[in-house]
């Protein structure tokens, strides 16, 4: 019996353990998507289910969400995985028991395509879930039958195009058509999700096998965000960095030579010994704070990366003894004050682009000239305990790299780091001369926040002097 064979091959048997097994499998799915679910949390979920009726989907979902997803980001992933998991579980069970939908889907000829197009656009605007689901099925019946490409994503896009749904306004459509103003992107995405889901359902029913699950992509996973939240994300990264720097073990300066006795705490402790100060309490040691010079390329190719980086450094100001920042394109200019005055990221980048006066004629970076200017400006202040950080893509636009001057800088400074906002893959291609500079310093690729964090960690560890110094 071919059907049975197919069924046994396509749909996995239910795992052991009944309901408990399903919940464990769900937790495993969450872990695969990067939500840290501990054993104790799974146990909590089971305890919750003792008190919550399983038959109520909302209570069930909220209950286990309270124990398994513990941040807004995790919660978002939880919603997606929850839908995917229980959709697949239900479909697999239906396939196992061979339940198919009664009745025939209406053929393409029964549907008025123009009415359908308008109905869908109207339902999207009003945001009614149930109507959308039904309309998605109709749309598949009308446009998707018979010529399925076998790739769900391709089919989804084909149907969307056939429906004439676009994000941008379509002024040539008649007055009163809901698509005239254009459909907001998030609504389009939602409808595409319905289409995908219904196509998937049909596929499972047709082939009686469960396709491999699709991992969440970055777009799904991201919280719906605007520019405000992007800034908030920056602040959060900075706050975390600050916290981590504060809690990491710092190398104590000069052994215990400069320990000061904390009189108040010593007196307090002396009570245990009847007022006689036997144990001395010391003030905590101050952590080592490096002195930092930052040079940032602000030419158009890297400008957003560098202003972001500068603002991060200045947010971390407390962690450093002295921090001076310079921006450069063809010439160099000090902007330390701008950042001390302006804590707002956007205002700071505006001030820099207006007042710094670093562009000369061409607007292309001239590294050679920058090194010379920097060296003459700072030569006397560089010393072996200073750290120099350069942020730039090392693209010289064909001008001489003058790595000999750069070597002179690194020789005077204790440590020199280079942060390149390009992925390592592109280094030394075209006019990038990072290899010439990398001989004298330590170069990092830095285009994601976690890489930045990694770097700040290295920086604050006050590690050994590197490079030619």
């Amino acid at each position, binding site marked *: 019996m071919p059907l049975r064979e197919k069924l046994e091959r396509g749909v996995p048997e239910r795992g052991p353990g009944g309901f408990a097994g399903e919940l464990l499998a769900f937790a495993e799915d969450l872990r695969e998507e990067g939500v*840290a679910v501990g054993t104790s949390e799974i146990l909590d979920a089971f305890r919750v289910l003792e*008190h919550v009726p399983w038959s109520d989907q909302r209570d069930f979902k909220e209950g286990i969400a*309270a124990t398994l997803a513990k*941040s807004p980001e995790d919660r978002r992933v939880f919603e997606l995985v929850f839908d995917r998991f229980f959709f697949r579980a239900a479909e697999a069970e239906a396939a196992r028991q061979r339940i198919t939908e009664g009745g025939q889907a209406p053929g393409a000829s029964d549907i008025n395509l123009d009415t359908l197009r308008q109905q869908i656009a109207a339902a999207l605007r009003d945001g009614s879930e149930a109507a959308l689901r039904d309309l998605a099925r109709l749309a598949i019946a009308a446009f998707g039958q018979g010529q399925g490409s076998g790739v769900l994503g391709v089919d989804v896009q084909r149907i969307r195009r056939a429906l004439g749904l676009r994000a941008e306004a379509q002024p040539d459509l008649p007055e009163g058509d809901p698509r005239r103003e254009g459909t907001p992107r998030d609504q389009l995405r939602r409808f595409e999700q319905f289409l995908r889901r219904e196509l998937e359902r049909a596929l499972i029913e047709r082939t009686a096998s469960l396709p491999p699950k699709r991992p969440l992509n970055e777009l799904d996973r991201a919280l719906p965000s605007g520019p405000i939240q992007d800034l908030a994300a920056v602040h959060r990264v900075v706050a975390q960095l600050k*916290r981590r720097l504060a809690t990491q073990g710092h190398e104590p300066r000069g052994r215990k030579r400069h320990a000061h006795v904390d009189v108040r705490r010593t007196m307090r402790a002396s009570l245990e010994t*009847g007022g006689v100060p036997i144990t001395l309490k010391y003030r905590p040691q101050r952590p080592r704070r490096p002195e930092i010079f930052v040079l940032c390329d602000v030419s158009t190719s890297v400008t957003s990366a560098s202003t972001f980086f500068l603002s991060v450094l200045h947010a971390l100001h407390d962690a450093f003894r002295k921090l001076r920042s310079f921006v450069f394109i063809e010439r160099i200019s000090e902007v330390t004050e701008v950042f001390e005055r302006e804590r707002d990221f956007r205002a700071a980048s505006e001030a820099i682009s207006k007042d710094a006066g670093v562009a000369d004629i061409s607007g292309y970076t001239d590294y050679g000239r920058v090194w010379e200017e920097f060296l003459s400006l700072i030569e006397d202040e560089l010393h072996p305990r200073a750290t120099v950080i350069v942020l730039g893509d090392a693209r010289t636009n064909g001008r001489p790299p003058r790595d000999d001057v750069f070597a002179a800088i690194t020789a005077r400074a204790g440590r020199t780091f280079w942060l390149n906002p390009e992925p390592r893959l592109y280094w030394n291609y075209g006019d990038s001369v990072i290899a010439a500079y990398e001989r004298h310093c330590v170069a990092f690729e830095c285009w994601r926040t976690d890489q930045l964090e990694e770097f700040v960690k290295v920086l604050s560890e006050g590690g050994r002097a590197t490079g030619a110094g």
Partner: protein
Amino acid sequence: MAPTEPTSVTDVAAGLEGVGYLPGESTALVSFLATKLGKPVLVEGPAGVGKTELAKALARFLERPLVRLQCYEGLDEAKALYEWNYRKQLLRIQTESDGTGWQDVQEDIFGEEFLLQRPLMTAIASAEPVVLLVDEIDKTDQEFEAMLLELLSDFQISIPELGRIEARTQPVVLLTSNNTRELTEALKRRCLYLWLDYPELEHELQIVRLHSPDLDEQVARKLVEVIHRIRELDLKKPPSIAESIDWARTLMLLGATDIDQDTFTKTMSVILKHRTDLDTVASRVGVMLDPAADAA
């Protein structure tokens, strides 16, 4: 007094509503679970969505006293847990300096009499069950969080001189956080998680109506709609629920029958607390209160 014991989620929802707090779907559920499982609840969300208010409402509903610990940077054990009243101890040592042996004095000065109870200790040692609110836990440092762990998992405190003090009753614990920093995994693992966000339009309308029932329904609806529009703007501090309620009260006192351009400009300082926000809103929201736009 006999504290209330809820038996179902609807119980909690109705009870909270009875004391003037309209819970969202998950709020009632998680509160119910907190009373049943005896696990602390970590409540996160933007400022002013009723995190602290939830704890107060729970205390009223469960008829338990509320013990509140306000966190701030630099909060330490001595201020959160307990401290020896060392002035009193010194006096004791001095008055009895002659004739008593060390043993006696030591037993004396490390008794409960010389112990200053701080909020966490009060909550643990209380004879009747309490609601413990640890407010704005994200303001403290990680060392303090670590100390809270012992308390939250076992509900006990170790005092070296006195031994272990265990909770006599199971407190309901709420921790609130404005999400200004990531809390440690260890702490999160021990808590149930509740994310409170700005409520839906209808829900907020109910809340406003509950707090100022005399305000005209039409005005209240318009008020909530305006607030929701304002929250969509890029503001330093978007108006919270507390500010919607304040605004409703202001309008009621002024006897406003409609929110027009004029009333709005006069009263918008109630909902906006930053100079720049006032400017942004004045230029953006003014248009939508225009009578012409209203008629369209």
